[in-house]
């Protein structure tokens, strides 16, 4: 079959989301970011919110998220995305406003902005990619790095006596009165991708219905930072990350 036949509309079984453009992604092969980007693009289109969405990018691997999705974006300083999103949402309450942040951005340098935006019940969604490592700067320890996990700044493994403990922000978020939906998902299987998409949809709906803040954590892989193949990284994540970062809804008062 010729290429043109394969991609003829009547033969299509799968299509790139219409809000994703053709810019070549800078993400490493095997990285979870690409999948989550796709889910966000699909949900915005499914909700027909493309003209009313403002995304806020972090500093970290997803700093260039604005290159890949054809919506309006603001690039925040490191950790400040929830404050930037607060500014946008308070100024345009009928817009869909979300942040897309990594563990260093959200759970370390931006802890205060994250906790307070969630606790105020800002009608925004925070998408939190937790891969337990600093990817962009070359594999240093993250606030969510597991005990014993080796990184460039804890080459002998994270030792709580020296480095303290992994910070479970999603647990914290679930106890804040301002949050309406707090969930932890992954994108390592087809089934988990489907569930993650549903979670993002529920969070976005809750934001638009003014029910409070939503936090969607995606436990993710960083095979480059972990120095594993993509397949091994998925295995490592299931064996080591899932027991500590347990998947599922931690809080849901949305009624959606």
């Amino acid at each position, binding site marked *: 079959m010729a290429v043109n036949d394969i991609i003829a509309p009547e033969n299509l079984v799968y299509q790139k989301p219409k809000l994703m453009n053709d810019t070549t992604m800078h993400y490493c092969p095997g990285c979870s970011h690409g999948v989550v980007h796709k889910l966000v693009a699909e949900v915005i289109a499914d909700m027909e919110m*493309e*003209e*009313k*969405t*403002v995304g*806020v*990018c972090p500093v970290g691997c997803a*700093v260039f998220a*604005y290159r890949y*999705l*054809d*919506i*309006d*974006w*603001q*690039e*925040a*300083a490191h950790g*400040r995305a929830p*404050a*930037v*999103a*607060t*500014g*946008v949402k*308070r*100024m*345009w309450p009928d*817009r869909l406003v979300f942040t897309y942040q990594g563990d260093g951005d959200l759970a370390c340098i931006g802890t*205060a*902005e994250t906790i*307070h935006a969630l606790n105020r019940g800002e009608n925004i969604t925070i998408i939190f990619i937790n891969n337990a490592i600093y990817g962009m700067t070359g594999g240093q320890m993250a606030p969510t790095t597991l005990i014993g996990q080796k990184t460039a700044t804890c080459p002998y493994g994270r030792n709580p006596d020296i480095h303290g403990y992994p910070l479970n922000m999603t647990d914290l978020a679930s106890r804040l009165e301002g949050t309406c939906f707090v969930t932890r998902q992954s994108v390592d299987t087809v089934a988990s991708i489907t569930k993650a998409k549903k979670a993002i949809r529920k969070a976005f709906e809750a934001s638009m219905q003014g029910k409070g803040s939503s936090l969607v954590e995606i436990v993710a892989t960083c095979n480059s930072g972990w120095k594993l193949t993509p397949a091994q990284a998925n295995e490592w994540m299931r064996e080591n990350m899932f027991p500590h970062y347990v998947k599922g809804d931690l809080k849901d008062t949305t009624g959606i």
Partner: protein
Amino acid sequence: MAEKEVMLMKGNEAIAHAAIRCGTDGYFGYPITPQSEIIETLAELKPWETTGMVVLQAESETASINMIYGGAGAGKRVLTSSSSPGIALMQEGISYMAGAELPGVFINVQRGGPGLGTIQPSQSDYFQATRGGGNGDYNVIVLAPNSVQEMADFVDLAFELAFKYRNPAMILSDGVIGQMMEKIILPPMKPRRTEEEIRKECPWAAMGRKADRNPNIITSLELKSEVMEQRNIHLQEKYKTIRENEVRYETRNCEDADYIIVSFGSAARIGEKAVELAREQGIKVGLFRPITLWPFPSKEILELAKSKKGVLVSEINAGQMVQDVRLAVNGAVPVEHFGRLGGIVPDPEEIVEALKEKLIK
């Protein structure tokens, strides 16, 4: 309240009233002495029930300035205020706003430093305000009010300039002007802009992409050095335009003067009195007051100073604006500095004494 009613209020309160009246969409701030009356007055006036203006107490100055980033990046008229240590904390956000070319407005009601310093008035953030303050090559427009009336009037002016040039603008005040009460006529009510008006005025704003345009991206990031250099050149060209068009200043009693006092903000009010006192003693002195500290009225100061015997720069710091005056005057006549530090505000007699001691001898 009648449109033209003369009122008596503090500079900080005047800012709050003026913000509501000039169509501000949002205020985001964190309390700090000596400027907390700004957010307190806004909370008391509840503008969200009248004009629809949002007032939010943020968790920190860092958060405040980033809320301003978000609001301004979405095309809205947004404002924050703080005092020196809080403004120091905001410098990250201000640099990002300069890089992303966002028209936010922020107010510094200065107090003495360094560090936690004192809550008493000072003008020791002049360098920080006029040199950019954060990382990178940039400038913010800096307006220095010297009265409660100007505190009110400069809010709208700062927004106008900020949006005209897509550049952050700052009102650099201090504890004297913030805390003193004097007469004021509030500016007329101006409605907040509609969505259509905002889309027209800010076609660059990230507020939701209509199908007829490409996505708008608010960012200061560019990893390609060649492109980043072009962005910087663009900024520098914009700053040149601002320098050419937006210099503001005021002179008093300069025509027949032998000596000139150069002062800004509250120090200029004290300088006015020093001029009166000096003239009572037969010393012909005039006052030059830069109203924009950036862009700085360098040409105008040189032009005036050339025909005089000397210049005294009186400011409430250890000698900051004096550097700009010396650069402007470039050795044409002697330029001396007088200042008090740590929250002490000089009185007019001290300035006259300094003038005699340093220039007349």
